[in-house]
């Protein structure tokens, strides 16, 4: 770490200090140094540039860009800030995409929403936002949303015209041999709201260009209109599959700025709820993988087990999917001991079904031979493309935020990295399954700890659930990371003194980088590989588009 700090301090920086246990936070005085600093960081092993997050300060007439560099292997990360002018003409900075392919779509996103022009980007096109927002840069402060919404009909017509334009181009290409453009999605049974423009020659794929943004809700902007507690309902809607861990991430950022640590009881509750969220999500992902291969039985079985875990969430919070159960300051409701019994019943249900899952699906010879040869991701691809979570671990890269930068009460939990070697679609599916087993183990540890703590009087389940967080936070910013079910979820929260709402929240979600990989993985393969590779990457459009 010291070496990394010295390295960064060697450039024109106005500040350079350690932040939390594995970050160096620095601010560049000029954007001229950005490329040389990034090159030096990459040479030092920080090969993943996971996102770039602009923050708009109209009062100072500047945009602040935050770059987050990560080294997945040695857990050394760098958070580099640099100011650029706010005027649209001057709002530009050298692109880092040629150096770090992982930041490609993130730079495009910053361009679409803030109007930052990245000089040297290979294809700086709009992404995520719908046609009617192009050129308007909606996340800048002072964008008039109400005036925009007033032209609802025209906006929709604008979106339709965009599709018609593309349709005309595809039509013109038709009829020239077997070369054509195929739309995979957005209504394909396996695609979810996402469309792959697949250029095919007969059955062979020439290129894949994902069209994303079908469920873009502008969540990062929505939270700016809500107070710190009300923002929860926007954040938990990143993805319905795993909703608790996203709230943990946000709550941690708020608590850090407020300077209020939560109680040990609430931390352990967060472990429990977070793991329930992970199990619920994984059980759906497992089913989705086989679904894309045309076998829906596993989905039905997995959803059946999932219901038992949803019962636990309902008993705790009163809702099954959108639980809103974790607030800044702790967990929202006190714990009743009967809940632990329900949870144990759910675990027992899973364990009773587990052997059947293994016998019929995981050791399934057809799946084994089909899925071992497609969608192979090497460890180098993981490091260079900012992949994370199950996808990274299936390629043998040891990354898991629960172990790398333990949050909540994960430091009390006994666990290891769940790894596989080859990085094929089959490996990803296996790691997914192993992680469900691991989560069951963590849940048992959490239950035992909660029981012990309550019996010995260390935890007070009624009083310890929440710590009071003030309505207004001081000036500050925080970066918070959690291991979400799909991978690393990072939030960058900026607050302003005497504001009752977040000033800026950037959500870095794992599916963006995973979707970016589709093009590399599918080029040169055949059409029948698309569902399998897509299904194994465990993509959720909710967190892809936000």
């Amino acid at each position: 770490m010291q070496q990394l700090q010295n390295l960064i301090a060697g450039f024109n920086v106005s500040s350079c200090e350690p932040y939390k246990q594995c970050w160096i936070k620095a601010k560049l005085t000029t954007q001229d140094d950005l490329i040389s600093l990034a090159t030096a960081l990459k040479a030092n092993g920080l090969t993943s540039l996971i996102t770039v997050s602009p923050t708009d300060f109209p009062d100072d007439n500047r945009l602040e860009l935050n770059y987050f560099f990560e080294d997945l292997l040695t857990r050394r990360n760098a958070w580099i800030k640099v100011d650029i002018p706010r005027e649209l003409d001057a709002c530009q900075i050298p692109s880092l995409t040629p150096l770090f392919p992982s930041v490609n779509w993130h730079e495009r996103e910053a361009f679409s929403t803030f109007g930052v022009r990245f000089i040297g980007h290979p294809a700086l096109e709009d992404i995520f936002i719908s046609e009617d927002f192009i050129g308007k840069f909606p996340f800048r402060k002072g964008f008039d949303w109400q005036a925009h919404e007033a032209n609802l009909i025209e906006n929709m017509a604008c979106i339709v015209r965009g599709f018609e334009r593309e349709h005309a181009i595809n039509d013109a290409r038709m009829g020239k041999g077997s070369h054509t453009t195929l739309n995979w999605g957005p209504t394909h049974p396996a695609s979810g709201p996402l469309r792959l423009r697949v250029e095919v020659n007969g059955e062979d794929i020439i290129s894949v260009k994902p069209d994303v943004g079908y469920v873009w809700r502008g969540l990062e902007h929505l939270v700016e209109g809500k107070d710190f507690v009300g923002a929860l309902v926007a954040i938990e809607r990143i993805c319905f599959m795993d909703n608790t861990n996203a709230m943990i991430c946000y709550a941690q950022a708020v608590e850090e700025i407020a300077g209020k640590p939560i109680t040990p009881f609430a931390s352990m509750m967060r472990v429990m709820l977070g793991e329930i969220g992970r199990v619920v999500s994984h059980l759906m992902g497992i089913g989705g993988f086989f679904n894309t291969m045309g076998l829906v039985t596993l989905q039905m079985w997995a959803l059946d087990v999932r219901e038992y875990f949803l019962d636990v969430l309902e008993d705790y919070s009163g809702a099954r999917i959108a639980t809103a159960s974790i607030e800044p300051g702790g967990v929202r409701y006190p714990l009743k001991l009967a809940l632990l019994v329900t949870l144990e019943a759910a675990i027992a249900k899973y364990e009773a079904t587990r052997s059947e899952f293994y016998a019929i699906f995981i050791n399934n010879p057809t799946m084994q031979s089909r899925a071992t040869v497609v969608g192979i991701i090497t460890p180098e691809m993981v490091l260079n493309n900012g992949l994370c979570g199950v996808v990274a671990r299936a390629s043998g890269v040891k990354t898991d935020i629960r172990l790398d930068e333990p949050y909540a009460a994960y430091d009390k939990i006994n666990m290891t990295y769940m790894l596989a070697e080859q990085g094929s679609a089959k490996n990803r599916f296996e790691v997914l399954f192993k992680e469900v087993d691991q989560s069951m183990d963590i849940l048992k540890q959490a239950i035992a700890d909660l029981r012990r703590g309550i019996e010995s009087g260390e935890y007070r389940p009624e009083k310890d659930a929440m710590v009071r967080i003030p309505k207004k936070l001081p000036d500050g910013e925080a970066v918070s990371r959690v291991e979400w079910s799909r991978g690393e979820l990072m939030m960058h929260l900026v607050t302003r003194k005497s504001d009752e709402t977040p000033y800026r929240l950037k959500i870095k979600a794992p599916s963006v980088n995973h979707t970016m990989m589709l093009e590399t993985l599918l080029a040169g393969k055949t059409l029948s590989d698309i569902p399998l590779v897509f299904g194994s990457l465990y993509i959720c459009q909710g967190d892809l588009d936000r």
Partner: protein
Amino acid sequence: MLLHIIQKMFRVVRALRQPRLATQDVRHHAVHLSANYRGQHTVDHEVCTGCDICADICPVNAITMLKLPFKRRNTVPEVNLATCIYCGLCEDVCPTKPEKAIKLSGGRFDILTGGSHADQESFWLRANIPQSYIDSRLAEEEAARVKKEMEAKKKEALAAEEARLAAEAEHAQPVASGAEGEKS
């Protein structure tokens, strides 16, 4: 051909005589129902203080406050059930004790609306306050107002009495001070 048709008819008649499997209206039975299930709200207008906090925190602005013809505690929440996302923050912030004036937990899960457009438009939890309550509150306020007026009158009379006494005292003052002056 004819045999075929007769066979089919026979099958249909037999099927019609079979007992229907779906004999239970599952809209009103939950497989799993928690005691704290966040369902349809109940608003207790007698407990509600009309403080507006629930409408303030609502992240989707589903709550509007209905104005009541009173001087104090004169608003009560109404919820647009179609907009509401059932997050329960309104219940969390409600300051009344021990019973919350607005409650979702333990509420109905079978929130059903009719199929017509008009049904959708009027899919609201209205305050629905009985006239007797309004009358009693108005009477209460009237009584309070009368009482206050009486008190004010009494006070006025008292003040007038005091003023009169003070004036009398002032009248007597020079003598007293004169006497004092002599003493010193």
